[in-house]
C-alpha cells in the first residue's frame, strides 16, 4: 500500500468518524434547544451537565459549536481524501482545537460538576479517535516519495 493511499484511507475513516460525532452533537443541540435536559435519553446526569452554566457560551449551547466543529472536520477530511491540499492543512488545527475543548469539557464534568453525560463522553471518545487518526497520518513529505 502506498503512503498516499494510506493517507486517503485515514482521511476517509476520519470523515466517517466525524459523522458519528456530528450525529451526537446534533442530538445534544436539539436536547439543549428543546429543554429536554431533564430526560436526555435516560441519562441521569444529563440534567446536571447539560443544564449547567458550562453547557452554554453566550447563551449558545456548547453542543452547537460541536455540530460546527464535527461538520468542519467531516468536510476537511472529505476534501483531503479527494486530494485538496488546503483541506489537509485545515483539518489538523480543527481537530487540535476540538481536542483542547474536549479536555476542558472533561475537566468540567470530572472536577466542577462531578457528573458525566454519556453523550458528552461519546463525543470525547470520537474526538480522541480523530486526534489519533491525525497523529497517525504520515508526514506530507513522505507522500511524494510513495
Amino acid at each position: 500500500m502506498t503512503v498516499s493511499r494510506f493517507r486517503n484511507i485515514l482521511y476517509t475513516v476520519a470523515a466517517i468518524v466525524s459523522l458519528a460525532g456530528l450525529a451526537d452533537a446534533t442530538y445534544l443541540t436539539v436536547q439543549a434547544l428543546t429543554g429536554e435536559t431533564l430526560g436526555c435519553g435516560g441519562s441521569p446526569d444529563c440534567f446536571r451537565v447539560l443544564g449547567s452554566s458550562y453547557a452554554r457560551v453566550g447563551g449558545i449551547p456548547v453542543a452547537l459549536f460541536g455540530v460546527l466543529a464535527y461538520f468542519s472536520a467531516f468536510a476537511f477530511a472529505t476534501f483531503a481524501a479527494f486530494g485538496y491540499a488546503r483541506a489537509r492543512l485545515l483539518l489538523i488545527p480543527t481537530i487540535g482545537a476540538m481536542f483542547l475543548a474536549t479536555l476542558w469539557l472533561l475537566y468540567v464534568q470530572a472536577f466542577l460538576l462531578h457528573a458525566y453525560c454519556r453523550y458528552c463522553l461519546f463525543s470525547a471518545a470520537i474526538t480522541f479517535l480523530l486526534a489519533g487518526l491525525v497523529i497517525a497520518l504520515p508526514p506530507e513529505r513522505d507522500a511524494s516519495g510513495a
Partner: protein
Amino acid sequence: MKRYLPFIIVGVIALATLGSGAILYRAKRPQLLAIPENKMLSGKSDAESMHVRGNPDAPVTLEEFGDFQCPPCGSFAGFIDGLVKEYDPHLRVVFRNFPLKVHEHAREAALAAEAAGLQGHFWEMHDVLYREQMVWTKAPNVRELFDSYAATIGLNVDQFRKDLDGEKVKARVDSDQERGHSFGIEKTPTIFINNRSLGSSDRTPEGLRATIDAALKAKAATK
C-alpha cells in the same frame, strides 16, 4: 464528476444534518401545558389528598409527575429536595405518580410508595426508591426488596404487604395518572410551577430557580 464529488458529499451531509435536526426538534419541542382552573392546586385544603414536601402553605407549588423507574426522575429528585430547602418556607413540592408503561416495575414502585404513605412514610419510601433505583430495577423479585425498604424505614411490614395489594393504593396511583393524562402528559419528569409547565429554557437548574423567583414575585404582587 470526481472534482465535484466532495462538494456533493459535504452538501448532502449538511442538508441531512439540518433536516434531521429540524425533524428531531419538531418531535421533541415541548408543549406548554397548563392546568385547567378546576384542577388547579389551591392551599392547605388539598394537602390530605396529595403528598407535599415543604411548607404546605407555601406560595409557590412545584407539582411533579414522576416515575420511580425513570433515571432522570431519580437524578431530579435530589435537586428538587435541595430546592425545597433553599426556598423554605416559600416552596412546596407535590409528587404525583406517573408510572410509564415502558418501565416494568414502575407501577409496583408507585404502589409501594403509596402503601408506605398509608403509614405516613410516603417521602421516606420515595427517597429510598430513588436512591436504590439501580438495585431494584434489575432485581428479579422487587417485592422482596420493597419489603426490606419498608422494614428499613420503620414500617409495619405485614401491613405494608397488605396495603400494597389493596384497592386504596391502586386508586391513588390511578387518580394521579388520570390527572396527568388529563393535562396531556406523556413523559416524566413533567413539572408544573404554580399550575404552568416549564418552557424549554426553564428546564435547567438556573431556569427552574428563575421560574420559581418569578412565581414568588407574581404572588407578592397580587397580595
